[in-house]
């Protein structure tokens, strides 16, 4: 089976600061992958490289056979770690925009998700709380039928009840031919939904594998393994 995402000797520096240091990686379809690392470990840089928002200094990114391009933007649904919503728009306007922009966007699905999260699509975005804005962005991203979902800190600002709902939405959305990469440092919350974990530290992968195998090998939770690896 050809991997959905391949990274070959990928490196990226900001001036003299090395952000990503010679990472090679192959991820199959049909997995939920946790990209875990402390602040400044390189998670967001790696995500931006995969999305073609940054150019690597060395190495290659290949997604479903394509380099980052229009072709890959069609199949990657990306939730950035910052908001990009225009304050003066209504939620409904964002649905129009996504509907217009992405072939794989399901308006019906987005509307159902919004309803479940008690968000009124006539609401102006500027009137929403920070957490509710995050929910809207996540709904937009999850309502696409993408091959690769990349979620950069998707649950950071939302309350625990919404967090559970969001995690269930991610599980629900899972299909054999799509994968989800979730970057976070809130590990204990997402641990049960992960297939694979990648630990990033100082731009390098220090641990990678099946989440349950790692729990078995270390005899503790991924969260505890993480604390051990990053406090040493």
């Amino acid at each position, binding site marked *: 089976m050809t991997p959905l995402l391949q990274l070959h000797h990928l490196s990226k520096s900001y001036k003299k600061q090395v952000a990503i240091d010679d990472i090679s990686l192959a991820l199959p379809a049909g997995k939920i992958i946790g990209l875990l690392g402390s602040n400044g470990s390189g998670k967001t840089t790696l995500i931006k490289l995969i999305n073609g928002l940054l150019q690597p200094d060395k190495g290659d990114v290949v997604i479903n056979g394509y380099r980052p391009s229009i072709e890959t933007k069609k199949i990657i649904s990306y939730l950035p770690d910052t908001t990009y919503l225009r304050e003066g728009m209504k939620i409904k306007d964002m649905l129009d925009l996504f509907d217009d922009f992405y072939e794989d966007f399901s308006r019906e699905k987005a509307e159902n998700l919004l309803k479940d999260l008690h968000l009124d699509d006539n609401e102006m975005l500027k009137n929403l709380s920070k957490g509710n804005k995050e929910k809207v962005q996540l709904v937009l991203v999850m309502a696409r039928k993408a091959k690769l979902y990349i979620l950069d800190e998707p649950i950071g600002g939302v309350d625990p009840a919404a967090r559970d709902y969001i995690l269930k939405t991610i599980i629900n959305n899972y299909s054999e031919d799509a994968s989800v990469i979730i970057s976070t440092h809130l590990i204990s919350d997402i641990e*049960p939904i992960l297939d694979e974990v990648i630990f990033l530290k100082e731009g390098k992968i220090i641990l990678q594998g099946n989440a349950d*195998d790692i729990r*078995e090998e270390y005899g*503790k939770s991924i969260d505890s393994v993480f604390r051990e690896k990053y406090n040493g």
Partner: protein
Amino acid sequence: MSWKFDEKSPIYAQIAQHIKMQIISQEIKSGEQLPTVRELAEIAGVNPNTMQRAFSELEREGMVYAQRTSGRFVTDDKELIVQKRNELAELELKNFVDNMTKIGFSIKEILSVLNTYITEEKLG
């Protein structure tokens, strides 16, 4: 509400154990159809692949079986369920006796306090 998992063992093993308990306690009856991997994954709040692995574990033990088109069922083999129930009971007894011995009870004392406890619980 998602299921809660402890720190120490893999999640698939905890799920397999949980379902095994439900079968042994007849919360899920012999021959009954199980929800699909996806349904159960959503209920438990876990990855579908993890749920799949838990089912494979239960299949390996013979507690459940898959029928190609119609889904997964709890075994009809009542003897196997009895056997698993006995295994589990033995494990519980072993833990109990080990712990009691550790805090200094002799076998005779264990029998005596257990007897008293059960009698009092029944009356109470």
